[in-house]
């Protein structure tokens, strides 16, 4: 199924994106130093040949922390996204396909969640649930799924009217078969694009919550939390804050590019007529 989705010219941007994900997965093998080992004698060392990105106030190697932070930030964003996009899309697809009371109840519920500004709700939910990366992600997920439910529902409603669905019914395919063979494969593309475009936003939101002290807790190396901890050193030791800042920027930029590209590719295919 992915084969027609990832043509050759997409690879230019998939390379850095995949590289980022690989770095995130194998982060613990890539760090030059233990990202949590303090060495107060080397605290706030500017970037040099030992600590390529310098050290923080505890003398921890920032490069190592940025690398291990990719794991925290990227993998949790991807995991969160995977959960909300799959759950949301399935709910939406079932709503769109079944209609009736199931649809009404689920969609009214999502209306309520949608009525909350995402970050506002996340801030409050993270507050209510207590800090921690998992709770921050959960807070974002509580609202996040609605978007995918909406998209997949409206896609399903469109697909439901397509002649090939009629053809499948005439071919004797049952509801489940139609959902699995015809509806889901066709909403997968747009959902994938939406999700890809969302990665950057989710990373920024998770980092934002951590920055506010509502996400990852110290000493966890998480980019937002690292920036928060480094704030007072913006002037005296800018590398402490700039390194995770640019890590976020770069990651978000790469995933945004990937999303844009993916959208172009899928749109071009979709708009062939």
């Amino acid at each position: 199924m992915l084969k027609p989705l990832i043509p050759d010219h997409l690879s230019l941007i998939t390379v850095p994106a995949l590289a980022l994900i690989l770095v995130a997965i194998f982060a613990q093998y890539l760090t030059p130093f233990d990202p949590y080992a303090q060495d107060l004698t080397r605290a706030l060392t500017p970037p040099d040949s030992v600590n390529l990105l310098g050290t923080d106030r505890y003398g921890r190697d920032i490069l190592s922390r940025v690398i291990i932070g990719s794991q925290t930030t990227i993998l949790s964003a991807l995991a969160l996204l995977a959960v909300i996009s799959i759950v949301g899309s399935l709910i939406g697809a079932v709503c769109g396909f079944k209609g009736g009371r199931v649809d009404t109840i689920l969609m009214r519920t999502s209306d309520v969640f949608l009525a909350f500004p995402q970050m506002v709700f996340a801030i409050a939910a993270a507050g209510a649930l207590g800090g921690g990366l998992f709770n921050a992600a959960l807070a974002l997920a509580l609202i996040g799924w609605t978007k995918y439910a909406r998209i997949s529902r409206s896609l399903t409603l469109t697909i439901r009217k397509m002649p090939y669905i009629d053809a499948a019914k005439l071919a004797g395919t049952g509801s489940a078969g139609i959902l699995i063979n015809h509806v889901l494969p066709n909403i997968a593309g747009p959902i994938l694009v939406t999700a890809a475009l969302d990665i950057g936003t989710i990373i920024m939101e998770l980092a934002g919550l951590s920055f506010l002290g509502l996400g990852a807790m110290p000493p966890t190396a998480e980019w937002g939390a690292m920036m928060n901890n480094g704030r007072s050193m913006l002037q005296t030791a800018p590398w402490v804050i700039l390194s995770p800042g640019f890590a976020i920027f770069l990651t978000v930029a790469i995933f945004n590019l990937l999303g844009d590209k993916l959208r172009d590719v899928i749109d071009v295919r979709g708009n062939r007529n």
Partner: protein
Amino acid sequence: MKKFLAAMISAGILISGCGGGNSVADDKNTFTYGTVAYGVAMENAGTNPHESYSGWSTIRYGIGETLFKFNEHMELEPWIAESFAQIDDYTVQIKINDAAVFSNGKKVDGEAVKKCLEHLIANHDRAPHDLKISAITADGQTVTITSTEKVPALLNYLSDPYGCIIDIDAGFDDKIVVGTGPYRAVKVTDTQIDLVRNENYWGAVKPKLEKIIVRSITDGDTLTMAMQNGELDAVQGLPYSSLKLFDNDNFKISQVDTSRVYQAAFNFDTPELQDLNVRRAISMAIDKENFTKVLLDGNGTAAVGPFPANLSFGDNAVHAAAYDLDGAKNLLAESGWIDTDGDGYVDKDGKNLELRYLTYTSRQELPLLAEAAQANLKKIGVKLNVNATDNYKTFLRDGEYDIFSKAIVTAPTGDAEYYFTSHIVSGAVDNAGHYDSAEISRLENELHNTFGAANRSALAVQMSQQILDDCALFYASHLRMSFVMKNNVVGFYAHPSDYYEITAELEKK
């Protein structure tokens, strides 16, 4: 459409008109002061001294004054009071300065002081326990205070900010009280106090500034940059890492060692911590020197016990186990805590030594200590789970902690007893570790009945040493406090008591 465009353009002009440029008023008569120490989180938002810690704000910002004040050696001097006489162990007679007037022009007489102290005892949460007053009588400029038991440190307690003398009849509307200080509050919010000169000020030195704005800026970085930017005339509570930014001719820094200490109490309800070896091992694993030197940027001294060395009962008189990782490991091993599964943490009966470390963030040094302790203890195989939350009281109440770390001024009144009664003796309000030592109880009882500084000092040393021997708490550092100000500011000094900030001497040249 045209109208829409016109509206957009005019709005644009409006914005660019009101923005831009530096809106710093370099007015010699207005003083803008940024502080991290004011606000709801510090429980001092307001100026009513009879409410929680608000008295600190009344005193610090020059609104009110106490009967006596501390000099830079933490010795008592008269302030509103002119003199005092200890009638017996239970009675003290205080003579009020005849010149003293409230900012509303009303004279401060014995009756006003009596009314104020009675209101204090009736309303404040800590004062009655400290003062133990049974009766107050007033006669002209004289006030006589009788206590239910011996209170050797009574005058010290009366010099606590809660003892600020205010005009009770003037009320407490809008969090504003009428005191006797050089400045008068005109607007008090949770984040800002606006002050104007007290034209009726009774002191010898008259206040020089027309207007003072005290702004609560709880974010150290904002504070730093606002100061650098010239938006503030002086600041309190800069992050240590920022201090070096002000080490130049444009600024002045006033520094003083305080009795503020960063301590951590072991919870004796935690089974693992009932073992002295474990407590001692943890105390020995904390690298206080580097914490002070690196994380506090040298703005303090590594602590031994609760009191700084400049006090007679301070660190020079006590001793504690030195930083020694191997020694700490041996102690743990002695008690059976050994890393058998190779996960880097010591374990016993298949359980890792894992402790909950509770602290809060409104004192910026505490999370630093927490993270440093976490890394330090990892070296001896103890796992610390840090919970740094400003909601720490809930966790304290629910007992959800094994170590509680806080910052505290141990000798605010220049006397040691307050610290022991509030934090150390069994059942004390702030005895977070539920430390219960018979020896401490005995010594405290003795201290309570002992008059005379030298004797009291000797007892305080014994008690401090007892705490250290029991490893009931560990003490990381004593803080050096710094005020940073523009170089045209004079008469603004950091005081070891941490009480006095804005005074009549303050001016801008």
